[in-house]
Every structure is written in structure tokens, then in C-alpha cells.
């Protein structure tokens, strides 16, 4: 009965969102809802190494529907920017303010509720000289199809080409951080963990894989013992392959428990599949950090509401 109602909920949400957003033929990277930093700190994200992705005005992620969720928004895009031209997007090397996103997440496990707040921003986003030149060419030559005959088919192709260009910076470095609390009741809510990390993405020219790196420091607010409450330094590498409707990545992350002076590792295969515009199914399988109960099997649904302009 519980399973049936869960499936019904998923179906109804899918139908509702499908009705709101007409499908468009764009790459998964454009629609992929990045995991909110708050989720990452909870160790509840399917992927430990996140691909730096341009944040949307507003995104909502649900984790197993009944257990928790996250919301992320980008304050910069809550107002208009009249002087920000199309070609400027490709020229900006350090888009800190426009990619600065705030997130909040909650996750419930048995009787314990965890809540967290987080942020992320791109410190560096580097496009190739060829991409920058192409953006200026598009800006200068769009008039015939945008003005004279309004060639919608040609404009659709152009939009896809722009999306593909945007999704392939040569180098992307993202800084993220989060602060987490947990409680069994509202009165007992207390801070338990904080952390900051860098996600680095490198896309070599004409190479089919994205190479991603991670460096993450996390610690208990008042570390008392090793294990979940300890001080960790995580570092790792991920290789990702992307197709139109799915991407798949293989990641290895080593966790150094600084107090215990010991190391753990995580190996995971992570897949994202775009069901329809704005709905991504994400799953990961592998071995988690802990020595026992370490089978990693996470499944979730991410909803991107980014296409709507957010207003306060």
C-alpha cells in the first residue's frame, strides 16, 4: 500500500511538472539539477564529486520523496541585469556573484531530523578562445534569423548550439560550503557539522570525458569522537561521460580522518537520466566510506524549476 502510494505520488508529480514545462531537446547537462551543498554535507548526495554547474534561479530536489528535500536559489537572477550582454557570459572568468547560490535541505532518518544551509559559487569559469569568438559571432550575426523572417527552426538549432557551448567550459572551479544541525525536536536543534570544499572540472579539448576533482574539509562543530563526528579531509577524482539524455560517472574519494589518523574510501558509479524537461532520476551504487554497512545504493529524483523567473 505504502509502495503503491509512493509510485502514485511520483507519477502525479511527473504529470504535473510535465504539464508545466514543454519538453525541449537540450542536453542533460543543461537541465541537470546540481546537488545542493547542504545535501552533500549530509553525505546523502548520490555523487560525492559534483560537476560544477551553472545554478538555476530556483531548484528543488527531493530525496526519496518521503525522507527529505532541498531548495536552492540564486539571488543574482532575482533582478534584471541590463548591462550584462550575451558575449559577456563567455568572457567572465570569475562569475562569483551570478553563480552564488544558497540552499537549504532537510533529511530525516528514523527519529532524527537533519537540517542544513549551504552555498556554492564558481570561482573560475574559463571558456576557450574559440568559444568566446563564436559567442561574439553569434551576437553579431543573429539579426537575419531573429528579425527579418523569424526563422524559428534556425533559432532552435542556434539555442542548442549555445547550450552545448555553455556546458563545456575548459576549466571550472566551484567553491561550496554548508552548515548542518540535527534534532529530535525543534527545541533540541543543535549544530553538528560544517564543511567547505572545491569541485574542479577540466574538459580537455576534443576529449570525450570530463575530469573532475574534489578537495573537501568537514568537521564536527564540537568534535568529540571519531566516526561521524570527526574531522575529515576528502579528496578524489571522477571521470564522467555525457550523452544527450544521460550522464554516467565513476568516482573515487579518499577520506582522511584527521583525528583518528586513518583513511577510508568510497567508490561509486553515478548515473543521471533525464526523464523529461526538468526531471532527472539519479542513482548511485558502489562502496561507501564506512567499514560496515557500506553498500552504497542511492536513488532520487531532482526537479529543476529553473526556467521560471523567480520573483520575491
Amino acid at each position, binding site marked *: 500500500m505504502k509502495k503503491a502510494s509512493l509510485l502514485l505520488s511520483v507519477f502525479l508529480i511527473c504529470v504535473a511538472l510535465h504539464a508545466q*514545462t*514543454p519538453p*525541449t531537446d537540450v542536453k542533460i547537462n*543543461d537541465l541537470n539539477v546540481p546537488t545542493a551543498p547542504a545535501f552533500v554535507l549530509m553525505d546523502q548526495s548520490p555523487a560525492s564529486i559534483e560537476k560544477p554547474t*551553472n*545554478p*538555476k*534561479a530556483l531548484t528543488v530536489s527531493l530525496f526519496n520523496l518521503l525522507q527529505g528535500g532541498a531548495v536552492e536559489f*540564486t539571488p*543574482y*537572477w532575482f533582478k*534584471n*541585469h*541590463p*548591462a*550584462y*550582454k*550575451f558575449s*559577456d*557570459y563567455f568572457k567572465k572568468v570569475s562569475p562569483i556573484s*551570478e553563480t552564488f547560490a544558497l540552499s537549504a535541505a532537510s533529511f530525516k532518518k528514523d527519529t532524527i531530523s537533519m537540517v542544513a544551509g549551504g552555498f556554492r559559487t564558481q570561482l573560475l569559469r574559463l571558456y576557450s578562445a574559440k568559444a568566446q569568438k563564436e559567442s561574439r559571432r*553569434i*551576437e*553579431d*550575426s*543573429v*539579426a537575419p534569423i*531573429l*528579425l*527579418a523572417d*523569424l526563422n*524559428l527552426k534556425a*533559432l*532552435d538549432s*542556434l*539555442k542548442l548550439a*549555445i*547550450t552545448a557551448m*555553455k556546458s563545456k567550459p575548459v576549466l571550472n572551479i566551484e567553491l561550496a560550503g554548508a552548515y548542518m544541525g540535527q534534532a529530535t525536536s525543534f527545541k533540541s536543534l543543535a549544530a553538528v557539522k560544517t564543511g567547505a570544499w572545491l569541485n574542479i572540472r577540466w574538459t580537455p579539448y576534443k576529449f570525450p570525458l570530463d575530469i573532475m576533482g574534489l578537495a573537501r574539509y568537514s568537521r564536527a562543530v564540537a568534535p568529540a569522537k571519531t566516526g561521524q563526528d570527526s574531522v575529515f579531509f576528502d579528496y578524489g577524482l571522477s571521470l564522467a561521460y555525457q550523452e544527450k539524455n544521460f550522464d554516467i560517472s565513476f568516482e573515487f574519494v579518499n577520506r582522511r580522518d584527521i583525528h583518528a589518523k586513518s583513511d577510508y574510501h568510497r567508490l561509486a558509479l553515478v548515473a543521471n537520466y533525464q526523464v523529461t524537461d526538468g526531471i532527472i532520476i539519479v542513482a548511485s551504487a558502489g562502496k561507501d566510506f564506512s567499514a560496515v554497512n557500506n553498500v552504497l545504493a542511492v536513488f532520487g529524483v531532482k526537479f529543476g524549476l*529553473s*526556467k*521560471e*523567473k*523567480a520573483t520575491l
Partner: protein
Amino acid sequence: MNVKKRTESVNMVADGTDNVILNITVGNAQLGGSLVQFEGNPTILAKGKVENLNLGTKASLQGKTLLVTTNIMDVNDATNGVVVTYFFHACQPPVVTFNDIVDNPGDIFSFNIQFKF
């Protein structure tokens, strides 16, 4: 891909001794272009990117209406907001800005503005 249209009218006063110059900027990292012509005259003064377009002297503009069509395609994944700014040199008001929202990603917004001198 839908096209959403909006028509506006703005009263302008050329107030300097210099010729009136027009610059148009499409913001929010969206992709746009403009078509500029005087009402009742089929000659297209500019098409596409409009930079330093000389519209003429204060006397020559008196009583004329400048028609500007700016089409903007939403190519910014972060927002559906579109914004266009018209900068006039030697004119009041010197800056005219319009903003709006397309209904769906990838849609086009068409601003049809009449600048009445």
C-alpha cells in the same frame, strides 16, 4: 518556441545641439537584435546590433516617430527575464529600459517601441 509581443510608446525630446545618437543593449546575457526605422519611411536605419546610430539633428527629428523592434531570445538557463535598454545621446529621457518575462525557456520576446519626437 513562442513569440510574446509588447508595444510601448515613449515621448522623447531632443535637447542638445549635438545629433541624437542611439545605442541599444540587450541584457541578462540574452541574445537579441533590433530593427530601427522612422514611421512612414521604409528605409531601415539599422538591423541587428545597434551601436552609435546617428538619428539626426534636433530639428530633423521634430514630429517624427522612430520605430524600434527588439527581438530577444531566451538563451539564459538561469532566468526567463529579458531586458533591453535604449540609450539616447542629446535627448530626454537619455535612458529608456523595458523588461519582461518569456513564458517558456527558449521563447522570444518582441518589444515594439515607438519613440515620438
